[in-house]
């Protein structure tokens, strides 16, 4: 059986809250994402999408999102890559969504990234382990 090497990603966590980790998009854009195993797609903010010049006017498709607060349509686009620690996923589809202002992150790291790995949360150490 092949054992994949674990990568331990040091994140941030305050007051026993959510875990955030640094991510790199398209090899050029380092941003902070909230790790969210409750969201099927990885999400990026509108501002980050503009900075990366992602083509929101011609998305791959629109998809309906159902959150605790709303049901709405959001565009789906494809990144060249998303890297967390040394784990990199190429051609990842992401949703572009207006994130709450009070949440000072540029995206949500969702299941379509996390499912590529065996994921362990070490909340006490604010660490995400991907193997």
């Amino acid at each position: 059986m092949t054992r994949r090497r674990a990568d331990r990603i040091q994140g941030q966590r305050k007051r026993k809250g959510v875990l955030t980790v640094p991510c790199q998009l398209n090899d050029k854009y380092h941003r902070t994402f909230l790790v969210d195993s409750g969201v099927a797609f990885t999400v990026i903010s509108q501002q980050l999408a503009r900075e990366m010049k992602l083509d929101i006017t011609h998305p791959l498709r629109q998809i309906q999102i159902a959150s605790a607060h709303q049901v709405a349509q959001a565009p789906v686009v494809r990144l060249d890559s998303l890297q967390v620690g040394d784990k990199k996923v190429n051609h990842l589809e992401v949703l572009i969504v207006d994130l709450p202002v009070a949440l000072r992150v540029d995206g949500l790291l969702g299941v379509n990234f996390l499912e590529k790995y065996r994921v362990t949360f070490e909340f006490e150490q604010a660490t995400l382990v991907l193997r």
Partner: protein
Amino acid sequence: MQTQPVQTLEAIERIYHDQWVLVKETEWDKRGNPLKGILIAHGTERDALTEPCIQLHDQETDVKTYAFFAGDIVPEGTVVLL
């Protein structure tokens, strides 16, 4: 525009506490995480970074940037429910 010095990310976080900052990365650790950079933009609103970021990446195609909030990601007294 006045050129900013190269600073550690810790120094930038300290100086621009509770603001969004955009940094042009200049030095990385062996895993590629940014250690130092040049401050490009800052502000209390996330939108303050967007145009400077677009301009910088237009001018320098190989540049790497780090945008982050230099403070608590979730304000004290707030609980995240997405």
